[in-house]
């Protein structure tokens, strides 16, 4: 029988002990004595969130296919267990073997959002691994970072031995082969990292020194090891239809955020919204073969017993085989009680038909993400969604029986004016009015509109990476202004208004576009007790402010400054495929509220073509078909 790392007494005194016992359905069981490499994969947040992440399931599967490797998992202990582990000096352990992580060869940490940075330090400290990479010895695990935040790894560079930039499918096997060879040859940690640095996609921060200008901006990166590359090229898996896909994903005992089969239908997005980092760093858009996906769906439902399947992608409507795939899933599994969920779907006749078939209309709500309240501002961000499309989509949905609509907006977008903010209130009201166009006897009660606003955070590798970000005070003024405008609307009682916390967004902004000097601030904030910052009940703004102050680091320098066009960014060391000149072109077009066609309409030379595949090389017939849908609109692009 499996031994547990924690005693009954501890497990019975913490919330949800199932977070810490492992043993889930489809957990891989290996004898650690029979493997050469022990790898621990970490999602630095609570179990229920981490277990819902597809990327870890993919890597878990890839690494465990190797007979010489045992890949296990760890998540952040919740604050109750955190306290007990410190008191009793219990080292953090992996769920599978329940062995201490400090004895592993690798600790791989996925970086999905900036607000998890203090949780990374928690995992390291509770594991009894030195927090700073420079303090680690030959027997400490090699700490790897990966995921979207590794595209600007600088704020956390001091805590990692190296970062894997890009998609995990391509290079993990080579990383482990080299490790094994180094280990067998008795090579040192340093020698292994030198070999790693020479692989494409690997960034070893210790091999670079950063110079700063007098004004505090980055002057440049100086290599202190000649074998390290000048720039690190992101890794892209170009063959998604034969790529690994975890057909036996783990099924947690407790309800995770994603309690369903997740089918990734494509990677990347053709749209090019200018605020969206995912839309830029996952270029080029690559589709998976629908036949492959059907096979995966069947196997995954069988191996998990899940009652729901969800299609995952940044913009499902752009998947060229969507109708075929969705109708297949409904026909094949609908009768067996399997629910099908389709996030990120454009509202049109097809999606309403599908949703009518798979969901209870009375309970579900429709979601639109106009992101901005006015057409002008939607053009600035290149959202490509018109008011007519939103209103006609809503009208169709109302006629089909829906009466609840969720709207997502951002405030603080570049060039935003009071008119744009008022536009959020007006658009919400117009949608409500659309509902009352339906004859009274055909309505399903009252309409409910929920308008949520988040504060715009400029991200690296987006056209808005040069932008100034609003301060919390400016945000709050805007939020109050919008509140007052919503109250002026005819249907104000049908409109519910939600907003995000401004301080959290401010910190996210600093960490997103920060540099190496922030490592100390993060360290100090963590030492002062900051943890689970993305959980509003745990976020302690004052402690963060104090950490910035004590280190003489100004938040305004990172957030409240329009960056000059020729500024060197901390993340310039990374080559994400999209070129800086393309992003700058896009930024200029944004300021002129000029839209840019999507990848299927016209290639605008973003730089991702060098990966030699995906949408950049799609069948020209498809391209013609796509542009045919534009109904004679002229597609042009001038840089």
């Amino acid at each position, binding site marked *: *029988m*499996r031994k*547990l790392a924690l005693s*009954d*007494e501890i*497990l*019975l*005194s913490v919330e949800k*002990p*199932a977070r810490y*016992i*492992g*043993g*889930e*359905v489809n*957990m891989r069981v290996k004898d650690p004595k029979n493997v050469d490499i022990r790898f621990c994969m970490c999602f630095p947040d609570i179990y229920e969130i981490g277990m819902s992440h597809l990327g870890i399931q993919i890597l878990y599967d890839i690494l465990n296919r190797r007979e010489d490797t045992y890949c296990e998992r760890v998540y952040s202990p919740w604050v109750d267990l955190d306290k007990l582990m410190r008191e009793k000096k219990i080292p953090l352990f992996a769920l599978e073997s329940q062995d201490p992580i400090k004895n592993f060869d690798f600790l791989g940490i996925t970086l999905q959002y900036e607000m998890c940075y203090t949780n990374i330090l928690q995992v390291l400290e509770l594991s009894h691994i030195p927090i700073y990479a420079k303090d680690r010895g030959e027997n400490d695990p090699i700490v790897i970072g990966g995921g979207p935040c590794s595209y600007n790894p600088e704020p956390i560079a001091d805590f990692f031995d190296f970062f894997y930039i890009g998609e995990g499918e391509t290079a993990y096997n080579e990383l482990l082969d080299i490790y094994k060879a180094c280990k067998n040859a008795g090579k040192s940690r340093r020698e292994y990292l030198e070999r790693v640095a020479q692989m494409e996609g690997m960034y070893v921060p210790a091999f670079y020194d950063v110079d700063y200008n007098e004004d505090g901006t980055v002057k440049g990166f100086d290599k202190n090891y000649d074998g390290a590359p000048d720039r690190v090229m992101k890794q892209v898996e170009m063959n998604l239809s034969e790529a690994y896909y975890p057909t036996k994903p783990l*099924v947690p*005992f*407790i*309800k995770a955020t994603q309690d369903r089969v997740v089918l990734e239908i494509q990677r990347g997005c053709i749209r090019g919204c200018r605020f969206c980092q995912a839309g830029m760093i996952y270029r080029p858009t690559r589709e998976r073969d629908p036949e492959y996906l059907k096979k995966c769906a069947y196997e995954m*439902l*069988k*191996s*998990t*017993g*899940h*009652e729901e399947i969800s299609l995952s992608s940044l913009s499902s409507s752009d998947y060229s085989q969507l109708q075929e795939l969705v109708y297949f899933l409904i026909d094949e599994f609908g009768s*067996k*009680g399997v629910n099908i969920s389709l996030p990120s779907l454009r509202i049109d006749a097809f999606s309403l038909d599908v949703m009518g078939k798979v969901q*209870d209309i*009375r*309970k579900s709500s429709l979601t639109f993400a106009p992101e901005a309240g006015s057409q002008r501002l939607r053009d600035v961000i290149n959202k490509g969604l018109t008011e007519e499309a939103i209103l006609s989509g809503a009208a169709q949905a109302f006629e089909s029986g829906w009466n609840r609509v969720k709207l997502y907006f951002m405030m603080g977008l570049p060039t935003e004016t009071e008119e744009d903010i008022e536009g959020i209130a007006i658009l919400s009201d117009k949608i409500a009015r659309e509902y009352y166009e339906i004859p009274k006897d055909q309505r399903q009660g009252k309409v409910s509109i929920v308008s949520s606003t988040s504060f715009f955070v400029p991200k690296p590798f987006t056209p808005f990476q040069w932008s100034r970000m609003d301060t919390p005070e400016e945000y709050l003024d805007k939020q109050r202004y919008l509140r007052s405008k919503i109250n002026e609307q005819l249907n104000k009682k049908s409109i519910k208004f939600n907003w995000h916390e401004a301080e959290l967004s401010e910190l996210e902004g600093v960490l997103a576009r920060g540099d190496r000097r922030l490592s100390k601030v993060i360290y100090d904030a963590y030492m002062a007790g900051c943890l689970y910052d993305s959980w509003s009940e745990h976020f302690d703004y004052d402690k963060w402010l104090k950490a910035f102050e004590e280190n003489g680091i100004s938040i305004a320098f990172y957030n409240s400054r329009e960056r000059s066009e020729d500024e060197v960014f901390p993340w310039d060391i990374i080559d994400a495929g999209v070129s800086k000149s393309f992003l700058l072109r896009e930024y200029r077009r944004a300021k002129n509220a000029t839209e840019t066609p999507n990848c299927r309409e016209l290639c605008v030379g973003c730089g991702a073509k060098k990966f030699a595949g995906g949408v950049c090389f799609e069948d020209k017939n498809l391209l013609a078909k796509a542009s045919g849908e534009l109904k004679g609109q002229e597609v042009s692009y001038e840089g």
Partner: protein
Amino acid sequence: MKVRLKFQKYGAMKFIGHLDVMRYFQKAFRRAGYDSEYTKGFNPHQIMSFAAPLGVGLTSDAEYVDIGLISCEEPEIMIRKINEVMTEGFYVTGFHILSEPAENEKKITAMSLVSSADYLVSLKDGYLLDNLSDGMEPLDDGYPSGSESDGMTSIEKFREAFRSFYAKNDITILKRTKKSEMSVNIKPMITLVSFDEIEYKENLRDGVLYLSKPVDGSYNLETESKADVYENAIKVYMRLDTGSAANLKPELVMEAFCNEMSIPYNPYAWQVHRLEIYTRDETSGNLISLDRLER
């Protein structure tokens, strides 16, 4: 058709709460390839009912779940296929098809039938019970020594103390509910006490097992008990009233025992393991374990 499954829950799975066990079995049936009956309506869910939800931290040799299936196979094959998709800590040991209620008969759930259950309560290693009046505090490491003071081992002392506790006519405790507190005499709700496995099993053989017979077409795997065994060997078998009419938790008995002995009650010190669940036959008044009950 409705079927009843008997299963063991042990090891790390004792930390999985009842609602999660339900979700687990829903998914397990789908993995095993058995189509279950669904409730009608827009939010269909499987027709499934558990006899007596087990608390977090408890293990069991006899959990029962009734489920509606569209079709099924031979009991032996069903058990094998379901066990193939189980994780360590869940093990199906019994299966039978339930008799359909007659037309004018009310549908009954397993839960409404439960009247008694057998438990084994063991002192976990690492908790001291050497000198009863000294209390029971966790040891830093190691086990309580079997040292003999007053010429008695700790096992003997425990048995003697528990016997004298059980010999009382009135064991009154304060039962706390969300709304109120009331004093209850739990003595009549304890119907069997034994300290020895052989004695307990003989009692079963000559008692409830003798008075009932297996259901036709049912299948039961011969399995070892999954109760954790502790070196200190301090343990007690008990039969307690369980169910909607009268319900006594073994934890409450141990708390009452500790209070009686003036020992601070430490809920973590005791491992509770369920051995069997019974219903009382309306006509004969005999106890019948749920795997021997046709409906």
